[in-house]
């Protein structure tokens, strides 16, 4: 009798686990995760009945590597930066995705032709183009506000603390652009020791004024607290602070560094089929355009572009805030994942040594 009881309890437990379908999606938290919950998670649950659990991380690449290597994967879909996705894919930590799961555009254009160049790789489907740029507090510079990346490095003309991401990536590129290097020559120059030297020298000119941030939610906070007068950060976060919370921040697109971000499936994800179903759902033309309603990141599909209209408040035109808007691309740099997968170790070591020295 007791055995039977145990068995039936176990079986019913099993049945409950099987019927309550659920997937876990790991992303970056803050305004970005909110936009995904609103544009992807909620409609997906409404349509399929599958619950989507959002998991936050500072950079999902690290916990994913840990989970896969430890053989204990709890996440089904992960949101990754392009360079990290390429790296993890090469190391066999991500599932290979068949591009045929992606749905074609409304006019029948095949998905692979509809996505921006390079946006779909072996293991990764880009959803957005995001940009790292700088923003300043308008009240700090009432007359003659900063307009170029060089102004960010000019603490004599624009006094005040600066915020920058703690790491070599993007900072070195911005330093060179501020030093007068044209965007298309930045990576060629950074391949040489002189270029690296020059970038660090330029960073050195403002080192004593910099407060280093790590999580994407920090820069708008630092600006709002008045801890810094200007800071680099992700454009979507600045947008959320400016438009949603009414902060007097102004973004400067000159010298922006933009790249893809999107979805991948960790190797050995517990609900592989549901994860693929979710990616198919979240990368349709409409879903990508919907996300742009919630945050100012450019959709990674060409056909989504024309569908992007107003912010969810119904009065803010998204266009001017998009990193991919023509006006914002006059002096912009596409981040080179090839450069960073190769030089990441060396340059970050050097960056850390530079940071620790006085």
């Amino acid at each position, binding site marked *: 009798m007791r055995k039977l009881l145990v068995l039936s309890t176990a079986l019913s437990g099993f049945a409950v686990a099987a019927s309550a379908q659920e997937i876990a999606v790991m992303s970056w938290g803050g305004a970005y995760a909110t936009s995904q919950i609103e544009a992807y998670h909620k409609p997906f649950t409404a349509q399929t009945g599958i619950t989507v659990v959002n998991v936050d991380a500072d950079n999902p690449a690290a916990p994913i590597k840990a989970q896969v290597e430890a053989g204990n994967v709890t996440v089904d879909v992960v949101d990754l930066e392009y360079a990290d996705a390429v*790296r993890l894919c090469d*190391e066999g930590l991500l599932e290979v995705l068949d591009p045929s799961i992606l749905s074609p555009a409304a006019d029948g254009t095949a998905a692979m032709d509809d996505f921006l160049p390079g946006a779909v790789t072996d293991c990764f489907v880009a959803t957005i183009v995001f940009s790292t740029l700088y923003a300043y507090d308008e009240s700090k510079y009432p007359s003659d506000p900063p307009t170029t990346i060089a102004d960010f490095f000019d603490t004599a003309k624009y006094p005040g603390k600066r915020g920058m991401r703690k790491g070599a990536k993007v900072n070195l590129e911005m330093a060179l652009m501020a030093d007068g290097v044209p965007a298309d020559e930045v990576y060629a120059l950074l391949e040489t020791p002189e270029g690296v030297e020059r970038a660090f020298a330029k960073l050195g000119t403002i080192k004593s004024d910099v407060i280093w941030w790590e999580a994407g939610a920090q820069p708008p906070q630092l600006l709002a607290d008045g*801890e810094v007068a200007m800071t680099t950060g992700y454009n979507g976060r600045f947008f959320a602070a400016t438009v949603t919370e009414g902060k007097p921040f102004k973004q400067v697109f000159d010298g922006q560094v933009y790249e893809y971000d999107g979805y991948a499936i960790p190797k050995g994800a517990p609900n592989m089929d549901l994860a693929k179903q979710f990616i198919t759902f979240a990368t349709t033309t409409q879903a990508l355009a919907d996300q742009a309603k919630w945050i100012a990141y450019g959709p990674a599909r060409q056909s989504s572009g024309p569908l992007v209209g107003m912010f969810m408040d119904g009065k803010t035109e998204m266009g001017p805030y998009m990193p991919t808007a023509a006006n914002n691309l006059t002096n912009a740099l596409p981040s080179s994942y090839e450069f960073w997968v190769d030089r990441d170790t*060396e340059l970050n070591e050097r960056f850390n040594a530079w940071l620790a020295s006085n």
Partner: protein
Amino acid sequence: MADSSAPAGGLLTTSDGRSLKSALASAQKRAKRRAFLLVLPLLAFIVITFIVPIGQLMHQAIYNDGFSANMPRVTAWFAETPPGTPPDETAWEALALDLKDAAAARTVGVVGTRVNYEMSGTRSLFTSTARAASRFEPPYREALLEEDAKWDDPVLWGTMRQVSDAYSANFFLAALDMTRDVNGKIVPMPEDRQIYVSLFLKTFLLAGLITFTCFVLGFPIAHLLATLPMRWSNLLMILVLLPFWTSLLVRTTSWMVLLQQQGVVNNSLVSLGLISEDGRIQMIYNQAGTIIAMTHILLPFMILPLYSVMRPIPPSYVRAARSLGATSWTAFRRVYLPQTLPGVGAGSLLVFILAVGYYITPALVGGASGQLISNLIAFHMQSSLNWSLASALAALLLGAVLVLYWLYDRLVGIDNLKLG
């Protein structure tokens, strides 16, 4: 201990002729076994959660089979030939076939990452060549060189030979700011990449400083706690324990609220006219922030052992010294202080060891200059994903703390420690 089952030629035997010692031992065997079973869960717990992970960490620091496990043919060729052998066609063939297999198994990124740790800029050489590897045909040397001329670099072959041995001290070398040159000789890192040794020193220095400030601040408080009448000392004790029970993160963020440039302290100073609006003091996101916040957080670990030692010291000792003509300073120095030393030792050791491994607080309030070695370990765990280097750094930190503990034992004696 002598073997007790030896024939009973000794003094005491039981009535059946066995030696008393062995009879006792067998009688107690059961009791001992039960006692052992009682501690077994704890023992298993410690082994599983403590000893095994530390062992894994040590292993990870010297073992990385990223290359050898995924490039078996080249690894075998390296094993057969003496160091410095220029690659022959066998080697090129092995390389091409290994790359082909690694590309199919999606492990070429692991290989590239492993080589890239030692020789920067080679990761994409592996991944891009592997993408073309399925087309390779003999002669393989020409095929590979046509794909990328960098394959002919003797430095690259030297590096591959080094990493083909899964067991390697290279991560420990890197953790000590050293590297190997082309011939495998150990040389210092280029100056602009040296960081770890100075950071270890800084960590120990800061931990020492924090221990000292904790001592200076904690000693009078512990003394007050021990000597005030009960109702006052209880109130004071709550003031000490309340922050001790509060979450670490809450306390750290409270310091951010207090100390930041637009924070409470700076605002008060400005409104009092002590500093000008532009002269707001930078008290956080630097070394000062780390010291202030960590001193506050670790203070209870100093006060509590001190208090437990001071409490039982009879006040009559100091009074006796005074009545015999000692000045109050002499009475304190020669009578009171020596009796508190076990508490000072315990508190300092606790605070120091905790401070050396501290991570969250410096990460949040340390800015660039207030980072400790644990922050770089976290960096290699979470950002660069170079777990072998992180393990090597952690193992060095563990070793350094053990050495300090041993020194403490030699100088002060661990028996003198009194935790409460």
